[in-house]
C-alpha cells in the first residue's frame, strides 16, 4: 500500500521522531510505513491521517483491484 506520509511530514515540517511520538509508535515504524515495508493497521492509519487533519484515503492509497458490490 502506497502512502504520502513523507509528503505530509514535509508539508508540516515534521520529523519521523516527532510524528512517532505524537501517535505513540516507534520512529522505526514510521520509517517502515514510509518505505512500504509495513502496512499499518486501520487504527494506526486513522491516527496518522487524523494527526494531519485529512481523510485516510488522502494519506494511504489502496491500489489493489478488488470487485465492488455492483460488479458481484
Amino acid at each position, binding site marked *: 500500500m502506497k502512502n504520502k506520509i513523507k509528503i505530509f511530514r514535509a508539508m508540516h515540517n515534521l520529523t519521523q*521522531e516527532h510524528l512517532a511520538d505524537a501517535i505513540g509508535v516507534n520512529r522505526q515504524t514510521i520509517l517502515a510505513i514510509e518505505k512500504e515495508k509495513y502496512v499499518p493497521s486501520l487504527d494506526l492509519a486513522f491516527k496518522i491521517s487524523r494527526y494531519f487533519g485529512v481523510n485516510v484515503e488522502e494519506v494511504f492509497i489502496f491500489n489493489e483491484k478488488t470487485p465492488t458490490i455492483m460488479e458481484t
Partner: protein
Amino acid sequence: MKKNIFYLLVGCIAFALLLIFWYSVELHVSLFIELAFIVGVVLIILARNKVTDKVDDERDIKITEQATIRTMQIFWIIFCLFSIGAVMELLHIPEFPRLSPSIHTPVILPPRLMGYIQLGLLCLMIFLHVGFRIYYAKKYGEFDTDEE
C-alpha cells in the same frame, strides 16, 4: 522504571539463575532450578510491566507474533518426531504373529541421552526464534535507515 535498569535487572536474574543451576547440579536436586526459573520469569514479567520508556507498538508485536508462530510450527514437527518414536516404544507394537515369537524388550534411553536430546531441542527452539525474529524484523524494516 527505566529501560536500562530493566535490562540490568534481567542480567542479574540470569546470573542468579546460572548460580542456582550450578548449585542444583552439584546437589543433584532439580527442584531448586525449576522453582527458581519460574520465580525468575515471573519477576521479569512484573518488571517489564513497570518499564515506562519502552514503546511496544503494533509492528513490534507483529514481529514477535510472526516469529513465535513460525518457531512453533517447525518446533512441534521436530518435537513430534522424537515423541512418536517414544510413544511407539511405549505402546509396544506387537510383531506379526506368523513370525517367530520373540520377547520384545523396550529400548530405554539413558537419562543422560534424554538430557542431551532435551538440551538440543531447547537450543533449537532458541535458535529458531532468534533467527525468525531477525528475519521478520528485517522484513518489516527494522534495520532500514534513511537521511534523518
